[in-house]
């Protein structure tokens, strides 16, 4: 099964193409997309198990030997992320059956999701820096469609800004790849790592490292470059927002972690110092934003920014505890952000508004929603034994080992602000005087709760079952800390 790493990319792509032929038939759209995601998920689980038992898998397309052809590489880090991506997509697709509305379903909503998953999984799997650009574009073009689908006034206004920011950053990506090619003369990521080790990272490579940080920072929403995120993400309906919040920024984070552990490891004093300072600033501005708004969507959107900062802070430590904490937190954050967005989608459906001041007293009418929201909120803030705890603990431990005491204090203090911001939603929406609710049907509410509850339970299991996940995360950490494992697997 040498082609196994390709399956989670090709299967969603295949089903997306199939779906294009049945534009009008909503029932076929739903059934086929569900089947497609489930089959891809099974393939990705199989991939995860295979990578666990056999180590890094590499496919060279067209049997061109590695530095010349395009290689796709599945190590434990990418396999974990691919599996989490498909898992979240499954729940969002099921949730969309009731939440997105037939108008959008008729207009290529499910194909767009599957194309986006193709791009995301491709970007996680590819072992070729230019192909990473191509897969970024695949996921971006699908996300352009998803963000504007429906054509509301607000969506049109915000999607133009979203597209402009991403087009400019894509141009910058091409420029950066061109510079890198002119210095090392290769595009294969393993080969780039070897060449940079040979020349010992001169200044120009450090400049390219900072350029890469800018490029991926725009996609991943780090400190000065997060400005587009709150406006653009608030425009589309909630299932799309859940997908974007859980997946898209994480691709940028993945790319930063991959390049900063594989390529730019010889001048850590400059590159990782910048990364660390930027990530702490990201956490701070995220906290300010999360406290500033009285809008459900905006509060959780700024929590994305905080999480990006925390993960990159862990990655910047470059020691075992820091990196494995970052991986733990990355997977945790994908699960919990997906769950939280689905939950606030239900709150918005029930109350008919996203303004906190206009809601209250939901606990009397919708108790299960309240309890699951509380569990998810505690999970996000990292109250043990829920899933956010272990990742943050490891990140803080790594930072103390590396001697960055102040940074880790800020990261730990940010947990309190995260807790405050999400509990504020709980207090305003679920406590207090009951407001008059618009008449909504119970049946869609129950159908939306089902995938959400399963996702929340999964995130709890992720926290409780940390012990079983340790071997997987250790494998992923080893690959990131010892590039030679990755290089040997690709170049044989």
């Amino acid at each position, binding site marked *: 099964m040498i082609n196994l790493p390709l399956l989670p990319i090709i299967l969603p792509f295949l089903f997306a193409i199939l779906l294009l032929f049945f534009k009008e038939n909503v029932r076929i759209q739903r059934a086929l997309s569900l089947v497609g995601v489930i089959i891809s998920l099974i393939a990705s689980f199989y991939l995860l198990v295979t990578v666990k038992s056999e180590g890094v898998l590499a496919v060279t397309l067209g049997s061109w030997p590695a530095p010349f052809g395009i290689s796709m590489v599945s190590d434990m880090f990418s396999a974990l992320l691919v599996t989490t991506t498909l898992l979240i997509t499954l729940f969002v697709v099921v949730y969309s059956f009731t939440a997105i509305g037939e108008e959008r379903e008729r207009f290529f909503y499910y194909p767009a999701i599957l194309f986006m998953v193709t791009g995301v999984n491709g970007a996680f799997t590819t072992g070729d820096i230019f192909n990473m650009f191509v897969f970024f*574009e695949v996921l971006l073009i699908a996300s352009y469609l998803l963000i504007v689908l429906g054509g509301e006034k607000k969506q049109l206004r915000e999607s133009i800004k979203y*597209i402009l920011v991403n087009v400019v950053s*894509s141009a910058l990506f091409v420029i950066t790849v061109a510079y890198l*090619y002119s210095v090392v003369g290769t*595009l294969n990521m393993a080969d780039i790592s070897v060449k940079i080790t040979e020349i010992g990272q001169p200044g120009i490579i450090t400049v390219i490292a900072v350029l890469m940080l800018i490029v991926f920072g725009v996609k991943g929403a780090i400190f000065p470059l997060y400005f587009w995120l709150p406006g653009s993400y608030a425009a589309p309906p909630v299932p799309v927002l859940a997908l974007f919040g859980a997946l898209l920024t994480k691709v940028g984070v993945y790319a930063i972690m991959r390049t900063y552990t594989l390529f730019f490891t010889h001048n850590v004093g400059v590159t990782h110092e910048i990364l660390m300072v930027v990530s702490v600033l990201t956490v701070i501005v995220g906290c300010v934003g999360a406290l500033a708004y009285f809008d459900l969507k905006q509060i959780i959107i700024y929590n994305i920014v905080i999480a990006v900062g925390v993960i990159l802070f862990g990655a910047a430590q470059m020691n075992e505890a820091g990196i494995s904490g970052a991986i733990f937190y990355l997977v945790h954050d994908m699960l919990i952000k997906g769950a939280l967005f689905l939950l606030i989608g239900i709150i918005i459906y029930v109350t008919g508004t996203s303004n906190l001041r206009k809601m209250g007293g939901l606990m009397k009418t919708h108790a299960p929603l309240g309890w699951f929201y509380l569990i998810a909120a505690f999970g996000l803030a990292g109250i043990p034994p829920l899933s956010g705890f272990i990742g943050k603990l490891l990140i803080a431990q790594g930072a103390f080992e590396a001697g960055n005491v102040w940074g880790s204090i800020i990261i730990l203090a940010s947990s309190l602000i995260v807790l405050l911001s999400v509990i504020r939603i709980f207090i305003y929406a679920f406590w207090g005087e009951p407001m008059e609710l618009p008449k909504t049907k119970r049946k869609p509410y129950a159908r939306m709760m089902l995938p959400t509850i399963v996702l929340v339970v999964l995130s709890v299991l992720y926290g409780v079952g940390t012990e079983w996940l340790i071997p997987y995360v250790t494998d992923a950490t080893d690959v990131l800390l010892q590039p030679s494992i990755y290089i040997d697997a690709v170049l044989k």
Partner: protein
Amino acid sequence: MELVMAILIGVLFTAAVYLILSRSLLKIIIGTGLLSHGAHLLILTMGGLGGLAPPVISEGVTDFADPLPQALILTAIVISFGVTAFMLVMAYRAYAVHKTDDMNQLKGNDEHD
């Protein structure tokens, strides 16, 4: 030759930045087009100009052009065509709905709707 290319790329980037910073949506889209053209020429230049023979494997030819940048540019051009077309459609729809192509009037957030 590299110097001429460098100046040309610089001029393209300058024009692109000027256009992207303008207020009219159409000018911004033309600006992104110029930006991607500049980026494509940069790949070509960075891959090394020159090479007398075409990049086809044949006996005894050592001085051939590097085929890789050309392949990269081809891919990047296709992508930027697609994105530009999509943006033009988007800009038209936004103009139809908002009755303006002035970016200043497309400001705003949720609380102003």
